[in-house]
């Protein structure tokens, strides 16, 4: 185990019980279980962006949620700078969650619809007594600035914003509590391509400016290719391959990775390849 790792995940597991059938119920046999995440281990270094890719049902979202115990793991461990997340309670757990912030997929439901943008950001800062939060206006302006939004947005409500703007607000709110790790769970998947690019660049900027470590969960390999230093490919609850992004994508080892890469259309490569054929 290298000591440089900021976040260390060891043998993390989660199984969900399926609903029992009538015969199982009568005979009191245990029902079937679904292994959503099966003994997964990985590390995230300081200032690193790790991509986590997989199809739907691969367990990547469950894994991401277990890191901050939005879903309780059944086994294994999560350690932030050596501190055991699974053992933490109350104040300690809240502080660990503060240090690992999450950005969700759907920008339309991740913000409280009744709260102004500025109020949501300053609330986050105040709850954790973040430096600068005594001056709400400056604090909010600074946070919005970090995500490249004008401070005029502070008085708007989520419904007045576009999807991309909402996602930036969600990121600003996450930054307001001073995290070390950002978990982006399909954070750009619901957005249009042109907006996606802007957000991807924002994540790269945040890593460079704030030294954030980012776990970037996505089903699109090409999106991960744009931002991730390393990539982990997940299938059926297991990480089937992990390594530097360029290496994994140029010479994939696992069959599943190969299938994923093969079914990925990019207009220019397709056009090039058809022209070569012709």
């Amino acid at each position, binding site marked *: 185990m290298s000591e440089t790792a900021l976040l260390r995940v060891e043998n993390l597991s989660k199984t969900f019980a399926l609903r029992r059938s009538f015969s199982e119920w009568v005979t009191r046999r245990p029902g079937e279980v679904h292994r959503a995440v099966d003994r997964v281990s990985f590390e995230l270094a300081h200032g690193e962006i790790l991509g986590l890719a997989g199809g739907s049902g691969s367990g990547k979202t469950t894994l991401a949620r277990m890191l901050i115990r939005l879903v309780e793991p059944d086994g294994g461990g999560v350690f932030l700078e050596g501190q055991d997340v699974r053992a933490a309670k109350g104040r300690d757990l809240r502080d660990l969650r503060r240090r690992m912030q999450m950005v969700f997929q759907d920008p339309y439901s991740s913000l409280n619809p009744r709260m102004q943008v500025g109020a949501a950001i300053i609330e986050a800062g105040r709850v954790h007594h973040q430096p600068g939060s005594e001056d709400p206006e400056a604090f909010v302006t600074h946070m919005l600035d970090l995500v490249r939004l004008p401070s005029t947005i502070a008085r708007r409500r989520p419904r007045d914003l576009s999807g991309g703007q909402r996602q930036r607000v969600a990121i600003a709110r996450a930054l307001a509590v001073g995290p070390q790790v950002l978990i982006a769970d399909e954070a750009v998947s619901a957005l249009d391509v042109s907006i996606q690019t802007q957000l991807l660049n924002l994540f790269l900027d945040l890593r460079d400016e704030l030294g954030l470590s980012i776990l970037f969960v996505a089903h*699109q390999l090409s999106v991960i290719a744009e931002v991730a230093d390393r990539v982990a490919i997940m299938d059926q609850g297991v990480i089937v391959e992990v390594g530097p992004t*360029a290496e*994994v994508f140029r010479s994939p080892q696992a069959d599943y990775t190969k299938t994923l890469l093969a*079914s990925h259309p*990019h*207009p220019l490569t397709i056009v090039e390849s058809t022209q070569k054929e012709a």
Partner: protein
Amino acid sequence: MALLTVAGLRIAFSHRGGSTEVVRGVEFAVEPGETVGLVGESGSGKSLACRSIIRLMPAHATMTASKVEFDGRDVLAMSAKELRDHRAHSVGMIFQDPYSCFDPTMRIGEQVAETLRVNAGLEGDAAKARALELLESVDIASPEQRFRAYPHELSGGMRQRVMIAIAISASPKLLIADEPTTALDVTTQAQILGLIEQRRRESGMAVLLVSHDFGVIAQACDRVVVMYGGYVVEAGPVAEVCARPQHPYTRGLLSSIPSLESAGRRVRRAGIPGQPPNPADLVAGCPFADRCAQVRPACRELHVALEGVGDGHVTACPYVRDGVPVTNAGGSR
């Protein structure tokens, strides 16, 4: 002669306090047997535009057009009866979400058979036999068993196959596929696109593929129509448009698309700044003017119209050619 010609298409939603135009003068054509892609981001009006072909408008939406002609017949002038016939026999359609597209309380096979009974006049066992044939033709394993399944018991990919079976049951001349793979995994996506392509080759029908994903379009289509803010901004052969995009929006869109090639390069893409337009806020002029790096005052008064740049390639921007500003453009028309 073109199978389908649409021109001057406008679609507006009426609501309290007025109406909002979301399609603002669109033209495109589909030749027999070819696959045309309609690409655009959310709010571009592509989904509504493709529905105009069978006049399938949602509540509170009204369409007008100078021309919607299919196979030599005027779709706009069709009576209710003729329109039903047109929908039943000439055009098939599949939708984005293969789950919500089925009656949840009816067995899958029943839904296929119902279409055959109503539209092809088949009865009882004949309808069932034909339905089973159709299910087999879209590569559904053990169709007898699937026939009795309810929609929620099938996977997304399987449901989309059944949807295709229903859509092609009357051997239509055109298949409209509205984001057919958006709700599916990438691996399933490839299979569904393959299936559509295979059916097209066998039956000689044309396909109009609507998608937000340029990758899907490039993979499956002969020609592409790019939409933005309710307008067609560029159209042409896919290879030509990808290699030599003319409209600044198309250039920006293509350069935004993430690529596996970027792996390990750590280079930021230029992309397109700003937010996609809200149809209610759009005024006269080029819809892309607010986000365009090469905008000039005349753009705000531009009458959006397509100009040829050779080889069936058209663009709605008179001021930029191959990314270079044209000094002596056709002026404001």
